[in-house]
């Protein structure tokens, strides 16, 4: 008993000392220049991302074109705006991104950016992308952080009005919060690759790279047997180790260069949109907090050869915040909130390990987990709708309700198949067919394997409720190894 008590005491005191050291870190202030730079680059990136939606017509196609929308569990109440309002929202998001970048009306613009990026993803679950999710997370963090204290229009306006300037510093904990967020992305993206399809069979990269054999310079590489497997290992090692190399001062510049090269390659090879851009700008948080000042100073000194006054400006930029300034440390509750946030960010990807079976097959734990580029998964689903009293069923193609993109996304995700089955039941009953039962004939191919039955065709999906428990209407994943897709050209 005594031993137990003393263990508990030690453990409590250890925990308290950890908390105390965390609070000490929170009291430690660092230059805010890094956060201002992150705000600037991230705001512009999201503005560009929203502009792509407008320019490519994605607002209509992804958010407005379908009569049926897949909902996230717990967010069924989110409805799309009217078309004109949706277009207006994206114009507002472009503006908000630019406002965030320059730090103007920061609290309002960053809130709009975070809300907007979260909202449009909630409109339809088939639009889920890991980088949209990450963008929303970072946007919310930016909203909550004092990123416009300095190097911003708001700070400039305060000075002009003679209001007391906010200290150009931020708690070190904020720096580590963002570093931890980026580390979580890489770590879980790497951890998810530690499975046979990726590391032993080189799938799905074999399939994807062989389709890019026409690329100049790189293309001929992909015709060589074994290159896809080598790329798989490079990707795995990159994701799992890059954070360590970024954290170590000596390897940081090389690691950053590796990040840039890696993400340029992924941008060339795969249609992954803004993900590479977001990751490249995000890893800048691993540099020393004053890196933008040093970079600015060098650039201005270089420019001073031609531009008068640049040298003076360079000296001004170089000025570090005075260490003697007194700052109010963040409230303990905020520190606790940050820790809770990170705990959730770790727990969400880890939930996949709670569900039995192959997450690439059952998909439970796939979203919000940064399991990027892991599956070449597609299938075909036909719903059998059996009205009571009719001697044969209707075969209902999902395309009667969905866009092609929605159908493609739905076919490999059981919860989405279930949602559409419920909608079909409601639709048939509304149209006077009486009580109907809805079954799914579904086959899914994963990472080059032949398609296998996906949903149990004997289960009336209209009676199955969605939830967080393991899906009982799913058939087991194929157990064979992913076949070796040979390069063709």
């Amino acid at each position, binding site marked *: 008993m005594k031993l137990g008590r003393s263990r508990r005491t030690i453990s409590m005191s250890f925990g308290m000392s950890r908390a105390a050291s965390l609070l000490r870190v929170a009291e430690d202030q660092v230059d805010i220049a890094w956060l201002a730079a992150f705000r600037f680059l991230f705001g512009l990136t999201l503005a560009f991302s929203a502009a792509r939606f407008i320019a490519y017509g994605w607002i209509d196609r992804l958010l407005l074109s379908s009569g049926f929308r897949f909902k996230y569990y717990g967010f069924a109440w989110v409805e799309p705006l009217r078309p004109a309002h949706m277009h207006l929202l994206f114009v507002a998001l472009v503006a908000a991104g630019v406002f965030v970048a320059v730090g103007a009306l920061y609290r309002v613009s960053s809130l709009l950016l975070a809300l907007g990026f979260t909202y449009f993803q909630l409109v339809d679950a088939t639009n889920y992308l890991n980088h949209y999710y990450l963008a929303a997370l970072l946007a919310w963090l930016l909203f909550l952080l004092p990123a416009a204290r300095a190097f911003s229009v708001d700070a400039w306006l305060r000075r002009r009005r003679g209001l007391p300037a906010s200290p150009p510093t931020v708690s070190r904990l904020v720096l580590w919060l963002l570093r931890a967020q980026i580390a979580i992305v890489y770590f879980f993206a790497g951890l998810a690759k530690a499975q046979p399809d990726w590391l032993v069979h080189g799938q799905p990269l074999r399939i994807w790279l062989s389709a890019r054999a026409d690329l100049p310079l790189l293309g001929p590489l992909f015709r060589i047997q074994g290159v896809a497997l080598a790329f798989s290992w490079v990707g795995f090692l990159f994701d799992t180790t890059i954070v360590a190399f970024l954290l170590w001062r000596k390897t940081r510049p090389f690691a950053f*260069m590796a990040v840039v090269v890696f*993400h340029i390659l992924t941008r060339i090879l795969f249609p992954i949109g803004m993900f590479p*851009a977001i990751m490249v700008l995000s890893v800048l948080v691993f540099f020393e907090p004053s890196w933008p000042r040093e970079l600015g100073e060098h650039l201005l000194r270089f420019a001073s050869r031609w531009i008068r006054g640049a040298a003076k400006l360079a000296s001004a930029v170089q000025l570090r915040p005075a260490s003697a300034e007194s700052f109010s440390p963040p409230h303990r509750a905020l520190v606790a909130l940050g820790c809770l946030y990170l705990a959730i960010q770790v727990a969400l990807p880890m939930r996949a390990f709670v569900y039995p079976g192959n997450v690439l097959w059952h998909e439970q734990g796939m979203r919000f987990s940064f399991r990027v580029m892991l599956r070449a998964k*597609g299938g075909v689903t036909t719903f059998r709708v059996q009205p009571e009293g009719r001697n*044969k069923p209707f075969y209902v193609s999902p395309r009667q309700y969905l*866009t092609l*993109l929605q159908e*493609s996304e739905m076919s490999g995700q059981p919860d989405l198949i279930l949602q559409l089955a419920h909608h079909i039941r409601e639709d048939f009953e509304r149209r006077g*067919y009486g009580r109907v039962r809805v079954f799914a004939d579904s086959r899914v*191919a994963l990472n080059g394997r032949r398609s296998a039955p996906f949903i149990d065709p004997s289960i009336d999906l209209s009676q199955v409720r969605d939830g967080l428990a393991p899906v009982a209407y799913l058939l087991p994943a194929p157990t064979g190894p992913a076949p070796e897709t040979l390069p063709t050209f």
Partner: protein
Amino acid sequence: MKKATLLSLPTLCVWLAASCRTAPPPENYLPVSKGAGGARSGIPGAGAGGAGYGPGSGTGGSATLLGGEGGEAPVSGMGGARSGTGAASSGTGAVASTNTGGAASGGGPGAESGGGANGPTGGAGPAPECPLPAPSTATFSRQELRKSAAACAAWAACEFEVSARALPSQIDVAAPDAGLSKQAFYQAMVRWSWLEAMQFGPVAPPSEVAGRDTYHGKGYRDLVHAWPQVARCRVDEQVAGKRYETFGMDVVSVSGRGLYGIETLLYYAGADTACTASSSTGLKWAELDSSQIGALRHSYARALARDVHARAVIIKNVWPPSGENFSAKFEAAEGYPSEQEAMNVLGWALLYLEREVKDFKLGIPAGYTVDAPVTEPEAQYSGIETELLRANVAGFRAIFQGCSAGNEGMGFDDWLTEAGHPELAADVVNATEALQQLLATLPQFSALTPTQLEETYLAAKLVTDYLKGDLFGAGSPLNLKLPSGLEGDTD
């Protein structure tokens, strides 16, 4: 730190630069056995419970499927269709096709594997001026596959042009039994149905909704045969209003022209109009007597025949160097964002079997498909649905397996084999062959039993399940994407 930052700057700059970049038809004419002309929109015993034809609420995006008379459906989106109309004269008034046999027997490349009717010509051999493509002896490459597919489409277009050549001289609605006209129509229609599974390049619809060829599609196909975007009222509008005479064929809706228009005018014997009585066409129609209606129909049928042949010439000229030289462009994947996208587009042509054949032509009468954007069954007046299905499947197989005699030649099966998936290739070929065998003995739709229809539907579904479940989609071993309608971000 300073050095580190400076060292990183050029790579950041490189990165930023890189990131910016229904009524009963008259007697059926040809050929094989068929039942007495019962109502064609309901196969006996099939479709209980609401399946059938009507204004669709589906997502096909088709326009102009309304029964009533509305505005003209524009020929919008068919860009390029006007070009080359002058070429029409080259074949107009030419002699009748040499392939007038029509009966479902004989050669054609599909004959060896699925019965005579599976051949591209409905039983007749290929026209002498359109030799079958020789099987490729080259080792497999995606470029060779595109070359073979282009050669196949060029050959099928040539065959169609030869048969369409007979239309302008032989279309005579006023003739007592319109026998020769119907024969010419039959030949053209069957040959066209072969081409349906070859919708890539300028022949294909350009719209993203259609999911065909958004890069080179010019919509030539819809100007020849826009089914399921068809409506008899649109034909009647032209019969009564003769706008085609004043403004040319370009103002005529795709829903009321082409082979559908000819079929309606040849086979629909009723003197009524499908347009509502209060519409302008309905009012004009009420003032016409039967002889006037006959003359107007004849006049429009002749105009359509000339137009279809003109389009056939344009489609034929898509391929050779003397025309649009699309064969060379397609072989080089020119104008596509990547070689793989060109392969996607070629693959999407195969999906005609999934939507139009399985869901629409078979699924609706079988009572399996509900809510399709289809108001009329294809060939409901002529009653040659089965022949058209045979030709559709034969065209599909030519692209999937090979276009030369006995389906030799390069196809997707060779690609699958080369990529290490020969078993999938064999499954698709075997399922297609089983479907062709069923179709070879299938009577016309009017005489089909529900069981026969169901069997055929399920046989088609087996093929299309392989296509959508294995060959295409995110799980495709060939990385063939389904036509999602947009190129978007992933993951």
